[in-house]
């Protein structure tokens, strides 16, 4: 298992896929701040809220993980290389856990890389950020658990469908559906969500900034229309989906409402999807 891990890490970090995803995230992380800076220069704005750009990497992590996991683990089926791993004395469980470890590590590195590049650009171009660095680090840590959970979910799909093409399609559809669901749920559960979403990373008016500044770190579930089971189910998705977590991180000055639930759900999703994935993968007939 250790040998396999070492070999797989080497394959991942020397492969084109990892560096392409890194490059994409570097461009993404820098471009938002550069665009905001250009807009600020062309207009005459005194208040700029760029903190949201720090979490776009997490919001897009669903899609990033879909592509990365499907290509990294899915190609093993297309190229038949799982056979070499089994013949080398590895078990199916070992192969699965190894893939999870490698994909999670790679995506966490990408997540932090995105964050630090976005942070550096924000700091260099605008001088200060709304959130404190320690809170950002705590949010990134919760985000890292979310990244592992998303990776575990995408890996489960990939290892069950056993095809790179199908896996990348299913995973991307899942990521898009989750994102749409997150926005819908946040809109439904939070009274101020639309206002916060409207604020975005772009330049906002002083009035709007005042509203955002007032509500951004105190809001939580405040729907007056949802009760009972429906509220519980929607709150579950509100707290458990990474995109939902990331959208909420981007508007909070301190740790967000239900942050403990986020941690628990991220760990639980990782464990449950890995268990389902391992059991299914062990039973599957591979070619």
């Amino acid at each position: 298992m250790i040998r396999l891990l070492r070999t797989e890490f080497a394959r991942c970090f020397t492969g084109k896929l990892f560096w392409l995803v890194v490059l994409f995230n570097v461009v993404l992380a820098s471009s938002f701040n550069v665009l905001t800076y250009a807009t600020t220069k062309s207009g005459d704005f005194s208040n700029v809220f760029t903190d949201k750009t720090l979490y776009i990497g997490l919001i897009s992590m669903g899609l990033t993980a879909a592509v990365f996991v499907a290509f990294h683990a899915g190609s093993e089926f297309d190229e038949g290389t799982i056979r070499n791993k089994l013949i080398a004395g590895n078990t199916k469980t070992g192969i699965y856990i190894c893939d999870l470890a490698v994909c999670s590590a790679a995506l966490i590195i990408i997540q932090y890389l995105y964050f630090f590049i976005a942070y550096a650009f924000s700091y260099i171009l605008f001088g200060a950020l709304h959130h404190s660095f320690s809170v950002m680090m705590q949010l990134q840590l919760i985000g890292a658990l979310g990244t592992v959970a998303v990776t575990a979910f995408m890996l489960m799909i990939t290892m069950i469908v056993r095809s790179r093409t199908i896996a990348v399609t299913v995973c991307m559809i899942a990521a898009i559906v989750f994102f749409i669901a997150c926005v819908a749920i946040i809109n439904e559960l939070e009274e101020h969500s639309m206002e916060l979403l409207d604020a975005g990373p772009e330049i906002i008016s002083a009035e709007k900034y005042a509203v955002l500044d007032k509500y951004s770190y105190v809001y939580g579930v405040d729907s007056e229309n949802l009760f009972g089971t429906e509220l519980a189910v929607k709150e579950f998705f509100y707290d458990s989906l990474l995109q939902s977590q990331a959208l909420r991180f981007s508007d909070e000055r301190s740790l967000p409402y239900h942050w403990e639930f986020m941690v628990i759900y991220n760990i639980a999703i990782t464990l449950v999807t890995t268990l389902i994935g391992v059991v299914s993968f062990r039973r599957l007939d591979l070619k």
Partner: protein
Amino acid sequence: MEYVIKTNDLKKNYKSFKALDGLSLNVPKGSIYGLVGRNGAGKTTFFRILCGLQEPSSGDYEIYGVKYNEKGINKSRRRMGAVVETPSIYLDMTAQQNLKYQCRMLGLPDYSCVDELLKLVGLANTGKKKAKNFSLGMKQRLGIAVALVGEPDLLILDEPINGLDPQGIVEIRELILRLNREKEITVMISSHILDELSKLATYYGFVDHGRVVKEMSAEELDNSCRKCIRMEVTDTAAMARVLDNMGVEYKILSETSADIFAKLNFSKLSDALSGENCEVISMNEHDESLEGFFISLVGGGRNDQASEN
């Protein structure tokens, strides 16, 4: 005799389809074991099970004396190399990178075997060319090289000459023979090109409908393959009348040729044929081929299961 692979009543079902239906065979150490069977007979399924890709539905198998459900099976599998259907290679890596990856996974102390293996399979000059740009034959050879990393004692090759040109077929054949003779690697091989297989195999297992119909050594096969006289004549209908009168077993192959499975007085036969206005054009001793033996063993019906699952 020492066996490297033993299977006992191995069964594998895909829903209602029985891919293996009580397959029992023994692969002697040091042999080149030819697995012969038509499409859908269960050869690839059996290889997949041996590699650990699939679990049998029932029955069991041993690799180097370790049963598949015992703890040491992973260790036994490390003594194996396999190319099943398609070669297991990373297409975005070069030949050298593929071999280094396998070395690392097997925990080999260095990459000293890489150049030697590339030379052995004739890929020493591929340089930085990615495997995705290789021809089918080159990929097949790279697959064999990957399977040979770690000096396995047992090599499993499923249709290794599929898609190869005549030169490639000869090269792979010579490579297999060299590995078997010089490195004493036991080879288990399946191929549809039975003539080619007959040039390699020292043991045969004939598989049909998921079970072994017959197992025999190459010597036993030689003895079992009937010898005959292949005659070319002007009129096989006339010859058939003559042979029927003589009470001889024969097989008409075409309007002008037939095989005779008996010792005959050919002067008498020639006279009788002249009486029927039938001339003898040629006469040769002929051995029944592996193909002929296989067809006579399993019947010559069409492939009703056209593909392996």
